[in-house]
C-alpha cells in the first residue's frame, strides 16, 4: 500500500533512525544549556525586579518587555544573522542556546518576580530586623517560601523551551524538527511525512509529558502542604 503511513515509509524511518536520534540529542543539548542560561537570567532579573532599586527594576522591565513582545523567531534570526554579518558566527546550536536562554529567561524572570512578590512584606522585615543582609534574607527566608510558587510555572517554561527548539528551523537548525524536515524533503530520504512527523512528535511528547505531569503534581502537593503549614500569601498590592 502507498499512502501516508506505508510500510515503506516506516522502513525508511528505521533505516535513518540516527537522524532522529541526532535531532533529539541536539534538541536536548540545546535545551539543557538554554535552560541553565534562562534560570540564571530569570533569577538575576527576577531579583532585580523585586530589589526596590528603581534603576534595576527598570532594566529588568525593559528586558522582559522587549523579549516578551517580539517573536522568538525574530530574536533567533537577529542574533544569528547579526553575528554572521559581523563575521562572528558562532554556529547554529550555540545561537539557539543563547537565543532560547534569553527568551525564556524573560519568562522565568516574571515567574521569579511573582514568586517573590507573593511573600508578605513582614517576612522581609523580620529577616532585616534580625540583621540578615539582602542575600541572607533571600536565601534563607524569601526564596524557600517562593519556590513552591515558582516551581510549577517554571517547569512549564522548561516544557515550552524544549518545544521552542523547533524555531531553530528558521536558521536551518540541527534540532529534532529541523532534521525531521530535511529528512522528509531530502533527495534520498524524502517522502515519509506521516511516520517522520509522528515519530518526531512522539519523541517530544515522551520528554515533555512527564515534565508537565511533574509540574501539576508538584503544584498539587505543595498546595496540600500549604493548607497544613502555611499562611495565605498576600498579593503584590497588599505588600504595599
Amino acid at each position, binding site marked *: 500500500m502507498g499512502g501516508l503511513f506505508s510500510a515503506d515509509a516506516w522502513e525508511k524511518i528505521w533505516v535513518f533512525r540516527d537522524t532522529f536520534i541526532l535531532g533529539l540529542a541536539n534538541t536536548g543539548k540545546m535545551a539543557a544549556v538554554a535552560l541553565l542560561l534562562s534560570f540564571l537570567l530569570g533569577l538575576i532579573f527576577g531579583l532585580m525586579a523585586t530589589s526596590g532599586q528603581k534603576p534595576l527594576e527598570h532594566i529588568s522591565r525593559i528586558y522582559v518587555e522587549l523579549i516578551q513582545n517580539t517573536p522568538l523567531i525574530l530574536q533567533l534570526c537577529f542574533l544569528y544573522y547579526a553575528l554572521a554579518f559581523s563575521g562572528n558566527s558562532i554556529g547554529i546550536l550555540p545561537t539557539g542556546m543563547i537565543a532560547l536562554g534569553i527568551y525564556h529567561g524573560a519568562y522565568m524572570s516574571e515567574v521569579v518576580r511573582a514568586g517573590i512578590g507573593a511573600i508578605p512584606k513582614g517576612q522581609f*522585615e523580620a529577616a532585616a530586623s534580625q540583621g540578615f543582609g539582602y542575600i541572607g534574607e533571600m536565601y534563607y527566608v524569601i526564596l524557600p517560601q517562593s519556590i513552591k510558587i515558582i516551581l510549577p510555572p517554571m517547569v512549564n517554561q522548561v516544557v515550552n523551551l524544549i518545544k521552542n527548539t523547533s524555531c531553530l528551523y528558521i536558521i536551518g537548525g540541527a534540532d529534532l524538527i529541523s532534521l525531521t524536515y530535511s529528512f522528509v524533503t531530502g533527495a534520498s530520504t524524502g517522502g515519509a511525512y506521516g511516520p517522520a512527523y509522528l515519530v518526531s512528535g512522539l519523541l517530544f511528547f515522551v520528554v515533555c509529558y512527564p515534565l508537565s505531569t511533574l509540574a501539576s503534581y508538584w503544584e498539587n502537593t505543595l498546595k496540600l502542604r500549604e493548607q497544613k*503549614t502555611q499562611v495565605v500569601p498576600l498579593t503584590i498590592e497588599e505588600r504595599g
Partner: protein
Amino acid sequence: MIRLEKINKFFGDLHVLQDVDLEVAEGEKLVIIGPSGSGKSTTVRCMNFLEEPTSGKVFINGEEMTSKNKTRMVRESTSMVFQQFNLYPHMTILKNLTLAPIKLYHKSKEEAEALAYHYLDIVGLREKAHVYPTTLSGGQQQRIAIARALCAQTKIILFDEPTSALDPETIQEVLDVMIKLAKENITMVVVTHEMGFAKEVADRIVFMDNGKIVEVGTPNEFFKNPSNERLKQFLGKIIR
C-alpha cells in the same frame, strides 16, 4: 543606648515624623503611646532602619546608623517583635529560633538549640519546638517571636504593638512574658495601647501625636495628672 536626633520622615508629601528627638537609656523600658497614624511605628522602625529617616540621625551606643552599616548594627544591637509576629512559616519553631544564631552569630547547632530551648522555657512553649508556626494560636506565635528576638541576645528589643493583632483572651499571656522580660537588663521600646502594661513596666512614657513627641514622662506623671490637653483626651478615650 538609642538616640534619635531631629528625625524627619516623609512618605511622599506626607510629613510623618517632625523633628523627633528621643534618647533611651541602657536597660530602660520606654513605652510609646498615641493615636493611630501618629508615627509610633515609624519612630521605632527608624531605630533599626526598617524605615530610613529622611533627615536626622540615629545613634546606637554612640555609633551613627547609616544605610551602609545598618545590617551589621542591627545584627549586633537590636531585635524586633512585630504586630503580625512574622515568624518564618516554612520552618519549625526550633528552626525559627536558631536560624539567626547559626547563620549570623556563627553559633554551633548545639549551642543555638540549647539557647532556643532556654528561651522557649522562658516563654513557656518548649513543647512546641518541632511544630510549624501556623499551628499555633496568635498568642503562642507572639511568645515564639519574643523568644526568637531573645535568641539574638541583643541589648535592645523593639516591640511594635505586640498584642494588637491578638484575641483578647491571649493578650495577657504575651504581656506576662513581656513583664517577665522587663525585669532583665534589656532595653525595651514598646509601642502599645495596653495602659496597664505601661503603668506597670514603663520607666518613661512617650506620647506622640501628628508625627511629634508631645509629652514625655513617668507613668505617674502621665496617669495621675496629665498636663497636656491632647494627652488627656487620648487617655480619656483609651482608658475605659
